[in-house]
């Protein structure tokens, strides 16, 4: 569908998945991961997407422009584990047309 964007997601086992994500359902990246069951239920999106648990942490692999980090996300990442320079909380990344071609890797479970 024309309003879908293609995103490449590497799961926690290192397997890469190319998925189509709808831009018209107010979804975020964490929800896309869950909808394709790329991480077991209960290990991702624990807080439901409130930037309160960091279970959806991912590493952004390529230079696609993402929305700027808000305070809550930054604060949560500062308390999370396995954090790198390119860490983001996928629940804070809404699916928009600008995300076409995005590549991310899921951070380990903690």
């Amino acid at each position: 569908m024309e309003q879908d964007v293609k995103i490449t997601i590497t799961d926690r086992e290192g397997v890469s998945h190319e998925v189509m994500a709808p831009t018209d359902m107010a979804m975020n990246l964490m929800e896309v991961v869950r909808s394709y069951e790329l991480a077991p239920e209960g290990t991702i999106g624990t807080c439901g997407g409130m930037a309160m648990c960091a279970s959806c942490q991912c590493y952004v692999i390529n230079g696609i422009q993402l929305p700027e980090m808000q305070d809550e996300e930054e604060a949560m990442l500062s308390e999370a584990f396995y954090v790198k320079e390119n860490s983001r909380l996928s629940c804070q990344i809404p699916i928009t047309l600008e995300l076409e071609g995005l590549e991310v890797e899921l951070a380990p479970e903690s």
Partner: protein
Amino acid sequence: MIKTDILIIGAGPTGLFAVFEAGLLKMKCHLIDALPQPGGQCTELYPKKPIYDIPGFPEILAGDLTKNLLEQCKQFEPGFTLGERADTIEKQEDGSFIVTTNKGTKHQAPVVAIAGGLGSFEPRKPLIANISYFEDKGVEYFIKDPEIYRNKRVVISGGGDSALDWTIYLADIASEVTLIHRRNEFRGALDSVDKVQELKNAGKINLVTPAEVINIVGDHKVEAVVVAQALNIEKEFEIECDHFIPLFGLSPKLGPIAKWGLEIEKNAIVVNNALDYQTNIPGIFAIGDVNTYPGKLKLILCGFHEATLMCQAAYQIINPGKRYVLKYTTVSGVDGFDGTRKEAPKQVVKAIE
């Protein structure tokens, strides 16, 4: 031994509503929860956040929903075992179950309803290689008794409310408090942040930011922590202390329930779809976010429905063969175990002349 009709594991919204529905059927409930207060996620994670899909409430704060549910079930006098995690379950010859918590409290009931949400909340442990060795030897993830820190040297790490609040609290008790956080910014209530600033300015606490504890030193107990600081130049140094308290929040884990012989799928307990939410073990039910079946939705409103159907099945187990028909609370009122009665006001029958 605590004895009850329905033993509910998990005091979140689903478990609390089950108390009400059970009460209507004259069954008594007792709840176990690993958290120190009822409400589950609603009070632990987001008490001040609004929920918009509770039927009849266009908007309600999660904390207020908990308060209302407690008020709604209060006349059925639920018992609570709080701050304890249900660890083991043993089936008895008479068909009842004995559930024992991690602190050894025993509970017996003919019906067990697991309303455990995403699991019991466990502390998130920082990635320090030797940290498990020092647990209960100076490393604590929860503060249970602040008095053990009196006149001791304490290092707290974390950047949220609990790190701030305990820093403030222990500043008056411990001989020395050091707060370490990976950033200069803290996330918490404004007055907590201000108070920590004040304590730092007055020299009552040490603040080390941006920095991280990367190792623990000690012979059989915590003697110091190794801190890595990245301010202008990277450096590592030791801070001598008696206690190290990492406060990085809690994350839910299914935990011991996963070993009760229940069928588990996708980190949830499989139940018979939409019949009565019984598990593969007769007498044990799973309701709310903790269960799964085709079409499952993890919503509070679905938990309420599941709790209601579970109580009907529990009634049959507890009162075999005893007749009952569904009654409307508007018609029959609500008779509490505490002797109270709620009922609709009677209509007046009177001639108009």
